[in-house]
């Protein structure tokens, strides 16, 4: 036999075989499928009496002891590093964009001055109270829920993982809230430091949110383009 092409039904069996090995993301399945199908076809050409199940087993075996894992890992790694690069490019663009700077710099200044003003006017107990800390934690929680909801639109885990870059900012922000807002009993010299940390972290969260939105839109556009290459059920 010179040529053999798997039909749609057989390709579905191959997809099922890949899914059974723990790769459920349709994008990932399609990433593996062509190479796997080419191997199966080659085996059937070499031995036309070979059953599809046997050919799939042999083709999978030829991927090595880790099976499809290295192919998937390489794909996910590339996706993550591409979106990380796009995220930082977006951060850099915001930091040099007059449009954003005209909003962020005055906002940061007002925030910093506001904190110091509340302290100077005897309202320090507000910014130092546990109430504000709890409100901040709740606000952060809501903020994270919004991000997770937005990411849910992406449908595919590999893309969700890739665009979730920037979450590392959340940890320092929480520490920042503690150091910046729980200072009701701390000496005056720490006020400016606490206020500065608080302000910087709020601005960092805003920049992160803007950049996150940017890469989220890029990911959605990319998935939209790939739509036609995925099985019909995902359209």
């Amino acid at each position: 036999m010179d040529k053999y092409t798997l039909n749609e039904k057989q390709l579905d069996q191959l997809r099922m075989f890949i899914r059974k090995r723990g790769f459920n993301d349709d994008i990932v399945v399609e990433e593996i499928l062509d190479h796997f199908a080419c191997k199966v076809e080659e085996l059937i050409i070499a031995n036309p009496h070979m059953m599809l199940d046997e050919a799939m087993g042999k083709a999978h075996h030829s991927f090595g002891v880790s099976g499809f894992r290295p192919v998937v890992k390489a794909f996910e790694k590339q996706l993550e590093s591409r979106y990380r690069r796009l995220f930082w490019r977006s951060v850099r663009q915001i930091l040099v964009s007059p449009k954003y700077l005209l909003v962020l710099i005055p906002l940061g200044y007002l925030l910093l001055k506001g904190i110091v003003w509340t302290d100077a006017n005897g309202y320090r107990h507000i910014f130092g109270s546990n109430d504000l800390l709890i409100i901040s934690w709740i606000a952060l929680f809501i903020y994270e829920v919004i991000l997770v909801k937005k990411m849910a639109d992406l449908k595919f885990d590999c893309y969700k993982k890739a665009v979730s870059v920037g979450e590392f900012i959340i940890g320092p922000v929480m520490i920042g809230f503690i150091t910046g807002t729980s200072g009701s009993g701390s000496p005056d010299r720490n006020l400016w430091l606490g206020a500065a940390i608080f302000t910087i972290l709020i601005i960092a969260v805003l920049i992160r949110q803007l950049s996150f939105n940017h890469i989220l839109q890029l990911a959605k556009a990319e998935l939209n383009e790939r739509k036609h290459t995925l099985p019909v059920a995902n359209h």
Partner: protein
Amino acid sequence: MKPNPVIKGSLNAIILKLVEEHGRMYGYEMTRAVRELSGNRMNITEAALYPALHKLVEEGLLETTTESVNGRTRKYYALSQKGKKEGNKRIAAIKEALDSVHLILNKKPSYG
């Protein structure tokens, strides 16, 4: 057929050379080309090929396009503008290194 350690070291150059000659290629086509060109003496494993391909894409040396072929998604790799310039340098570097190894291995010992 065991994976050749020499192949692993020169994999990027091999990929760039193959893609340069064929215009564009997909993953499986590359493994088959290496096998055929080496007379079945060399084999590229998927575990080595795909990380190398993705790295070359990351570096901007290769570009990808996807097409639906026979009911499945096929990803083609082609040289980018940067890849056309950089690729030749990398191929020349690996050739030079292999020539040097060849010289050393074939030289009759005359020192001492």
